[in-house]
């Protein structure tokens, strides 16, 4: 490395400084998940479906959060945040009008170009629906660019199901097949019951032209991948988004590293072919 490279680096803005954003809408979706719509105070965020941001609560810290909206929806970004940690716990009390810090977007996002013209099968469990929704919205907004669209969504219980109203709209659409299941129904639940892989029986997959986007807890991911493989979908067209501990978002801090790969920079979206080779991926 030369001296001038170093000077250039020093002059560049620090990648660790958050930009300010204002919450324009906040909604408690479930007991633990909170939805936010944000507006950047400076330049809007240019992002791809599947990317994530670092959300700062000043004085508390930062947490990596998937963007759950699609750039086709406009300049605002939407986040679904599960309150499990220091920062996400603090966000429980944040309302419209409050301000947050945002870094990013980080990561590669879904390769929408490669999916063009293909059938897209979404399999999303639990909080996995958040990053998946980003792509679902994108695909539905650019519907003519894609083949058959199938959406399988699952949750442990009905009251843990995210985006219920929106899913209901997807179910109504004639240009997409949407199926929903819960593991443990309550007395009002009228839909499918059982783990999400049970829904595979109800859908037809043309393995020659299907991209399977599978995002959810590790156990769900494992079995949904087996179903997709059994249906003949090749490993390089099974696509997932990984969750890891992250501190920097720019491939330095090492927390998200899986073997030689930094999830924050090289992911979080990977094909199953890649994940399988990583061994420590799932």
């Amino acid at each position, binding site marked *: 490395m030369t001296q001038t490279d170093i000077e250039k680096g020093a002059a560049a803005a*620090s990648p660790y400084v958050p930009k300010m954003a204002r919450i324009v809408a906040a909604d408690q979706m479930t007991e633990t998940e909170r939805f936010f719509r944000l507006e950047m105070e400076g330049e809007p965020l240019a992002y791809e479906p599947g990317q994530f941001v670092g959300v700062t609560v000043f004085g508390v810290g930062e947490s990596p959060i998937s963007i759950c909206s699609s750039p086709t929806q406009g300049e605002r970004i939407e986040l679904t945040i599960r309150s499990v940690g220091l920062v996400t716990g603090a966000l429980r009390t944040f309302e419209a009008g409050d301000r947050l810090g945002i870094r990013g977007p980080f990561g590669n996002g879904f390769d929408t170009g490669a999916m063009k013209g293909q059938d897209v099968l979404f399999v999303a469990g639990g909080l996995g629906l958040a990053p998946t929704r980003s792509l679902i919205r994108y695909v539905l907004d650019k519907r003519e660019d894609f083949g058959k669209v199938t959406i399988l969504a699952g949750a442990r219980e009905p009251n843990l199901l995210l985006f219920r109203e929106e899913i209901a709209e997807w179910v109504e659409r004639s240009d997409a097949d949407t199926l929903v299941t819960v593991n443990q129904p309550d007395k009002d639940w009228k839909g499918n019951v059982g783990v999400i892989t049970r829904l595979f029986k109800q859908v037809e997959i043309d393995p020659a032209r299907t991209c399977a986007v599978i995002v959810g807890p590790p156990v769900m991911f494992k079995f949904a991948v087996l179903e997709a493989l059994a249906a003949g979908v090749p490993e390089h067209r099974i696509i997932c988004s990984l969750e*890891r501990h992250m501190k920097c978002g720019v*491939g330095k801090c090492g927390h998200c590293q899986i073997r030689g790969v930094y999830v924050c920079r090289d992911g979080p979206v990977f094909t199953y072919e890649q994940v399988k080779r990583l061994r420590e991926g799932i």
Partner: protein
Amino acid sequence: MLPQVLKTSDLGAWVEALMAESRVAAPVLKETNVSDPTDLKFGWQYVPDPADVRLDYTVTVLGPKKFLWPPRQKLVRYNLGAGAEPEAIIDHEPHVLLGVHPCDITAIATLDAAFAKDVPDPHYLARRSDTAIIGLDCGAPCDESSFCLDMGSLYPESGFDVMLTPLGDAYFVEVATQLGEALVEAAVVRPATKQDMEAHQAFAEEKRSDFHYKLPYELKYLPEILDASYDSLVWEAIARQCFSCGSCNIACPTCYCFDVYDEVEVDLSKGCRVRRYDSCQLDPFAEVAGGENFRQERASRLRHRMFRKGKYILEQTGRVGCVGCGRCERACVAGISIKDTYVQIAGSR
């Protein structure tokens, strides 16, 4: 500038001249073993007095990395309350690192590459660009733990501004950069003569015979050997002795993983974002907020470190992550040795 010669007796005056311009960090004597007066413990410090500089040092617990990349570094400051107005803290001032051994010169070049890659890290790079490095060649291995010859760090071709080679009562002074030239101008030196050149050559030749290879294979095969060892029982066996205490990472001159957290002043008016050294050997390193830990097993963390040093950092930066300095082995209470591990995996399946 052609090679120069600095009399050992003029070193103090040079250090004093350098100290007039900027801070100078160098190895100093930290403590002496009461039962063995020859067992000296050295450490890197900003020197208050030129007489404290000990260029006869062997090993230090921490390398000079801490001056380029402080163990705890503030990245961003902000207000609490209405307007956060976050801004970067780029904290740097000129300083000279005096007496950096070849292994640490090599390690610094690796850190340079890692922090400049992809998204550059100005918090590191600003300090780096304000750092002058005066190297000090080694005539003999530090101890049994070091294997710098194997790891290709014994003969750095760049990464220093000046290189000193001890020749009895004088130092052979090679100047590698313009900055180095400015540094040497502050010293009382004379141009090297033919005899000095020959003495320098003799030092290099003697050095070559004093260092011995310790790995049974060439460095270029290490990534492959690591890959083949991924499922070996070796990791589990070594991990039984491992405390996961993180000492190896803290002592390592190329480890650069960090934790980031926020600190708040007691009057709740201001906060800052801080990073500090982290260790992939610690239990929570790969744990996500929901509680899932992707390297829960001690053995998988230990393997990760060995792979990172021998393979992953190489893939990231083009430079191997281990410089063979032996610090991790010396720092390990359980005596886990990266060198022995690399030997062991070559013969295991």
